[in-house]
């Protein structure tokens, strides 16, 4: 276990982490300025997770949330476990080979979004009684007024808002890694996770479309169940 954690960290990892934290925060602020309905504040976290491994990603996520909370928006502080698991999950998915072509990256983004939704729910419920200072709480409030339980209201809100953000984040991180020269990437502990698989053939494309359709159906089914129950 300890060995597995340690092999995420070489000197390049330690140098990349502060830069990734700064990327998270700076890009998050750019997106805020563009007034887009996403956050994109974990691109750096996903980069570290893919290039160095899940534990390095988790550390980057947690630290950038804490620094963001202290320096910019205090409301972000209690959410560091969410960022921790975003980094961890992105690293795990990359370790399982799900960061090698664009459709796999979409799947990674979706899984990361589910993780974020699951981890953020207890924090929202226990610390804030379900209503946080984020704009998406309007949805939660609406669901609560329609008579839903607090847990299902918070979970449904996250399922509605997270996937778009996390899939975009994963796609951008993928594009960035593909754009970097090979020799820049070579020094990181898990560089091989980011190597693109041969040329994507037609079959893979069909599988990709199938997976996306299935995931959307699954999400719709889950949501209907939650909303109905």
């Amino acid at each position, binding site marked *: 276990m300890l060995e597995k954690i340690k092999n995420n960290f070489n000197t390049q990892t330690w140098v990349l982490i502060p830069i990734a934290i700064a990327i998270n925060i700076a890009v998050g602020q750019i997106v805020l300025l*563009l007034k887009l309905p996403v956050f994109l504040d974990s691109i750096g976290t996903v980069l570290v997770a893919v290039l160095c491994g899940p534990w390095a990603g988790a550390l980057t996520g947690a630290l950038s949330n804490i620094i963001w909370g202290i320096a910019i928006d205090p409301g972000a502080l209690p959410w560091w476990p969410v960022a921790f698991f975003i980094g961890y999950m992105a690293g795990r998915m990359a370790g399982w080979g799900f960061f090698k072509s664009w459709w796999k990256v979409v799947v990674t983004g979706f899984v990361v979004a589910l993780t974020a939704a699951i981890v953020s729910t207890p924090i929202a419920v226990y*610390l804030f009684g379900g209503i946080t200072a984020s704009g998406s709480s309007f949805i939660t409030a609406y669901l609560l007024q329609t008579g839903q339980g607090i847990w299902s209201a918070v979970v449904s809100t996250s399922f509605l808002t997270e996937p778009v953000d996390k899939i975009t984040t994963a796609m951008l991180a993928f594009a960035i890694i593909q754009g970097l020269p090979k020799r820049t990437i070579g020094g990181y502990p898990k560089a091989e996770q980011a190597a693109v698989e041969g040329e994507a053939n037609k079959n893979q494309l069909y599988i990709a479309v199938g997976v996306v359709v299935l995931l959307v159906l699954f999400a719709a089914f889950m949501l209907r169940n939650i909303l109905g129950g």
Partner: protein
Amino acid sequence: MHERLSFYVQRSSAIHDLNPLTKVILTLALILIAFTSPWYWTPHLLVLIAIIPLSFLGRVAPEFFKTAIRLILPAAGFLFLMQAFFQPVGESVIFKFYFLDVTQESLMFAFRSSMRVFVMVSAFTFMLLTTHPSELMSDLTRRGLPGQFAYVIISTLQILPQMQAKAQTIISAQRSRGLDTESSFLKRAGSVVPLVGPLVFGSLAEVEERAIAIEARGFTSKKIKTSLHEIADSNSDKIIRWVLTILVIISIALKIWLS
């Protein structure tokens, strides 16, 4: 050159002289007690009898109140409004606004959770105002924190303002070339890549050079490093830390006992 991101205010006071670890424990204790104490008024009282007097004792009161008004009150206030309107608890409706009721219970709930957030952030602010980040890190390293963590924290504080300045430059440069950052949704979404790309690629290019530079300075060496700067750790520091730890344990125990 850009300054590093730091709230530290150089003064001489009893608080500034405390060991950095004592101040960290004080901050964590305040937060834990505010969140775990079963008594409704604890967070409110903590602000009045602990955090505000401490900021006077540390002679950072003007800076503390400035940060509180500019940064903490808006966040806590917004949370208060959201919760007061949207918490569906309670029976005694004070007033109605379309489908939203503000009840006495939801007001009380909102007041407590915004005060908790206030305690959390103001305790952190207080610590940052009175503790120099490098001093905190070298003290923690002396106590066994791996040097790599200290490097991550300190260099993040240094890189972040540089990165934000670089982002500003890129935004201005792309705008002057006619990049649309203000009109329709699709145009704005399309300008993410030309803004994010240069920023990220530019900063990732530095990584290898930095890695070689710190490697040459013995970054990964296992030898124990000596410090030029000695940080005092008196007996009263130790007593304060123990008292705080016991208070936190009592608060958590009461919470479990009463629930």
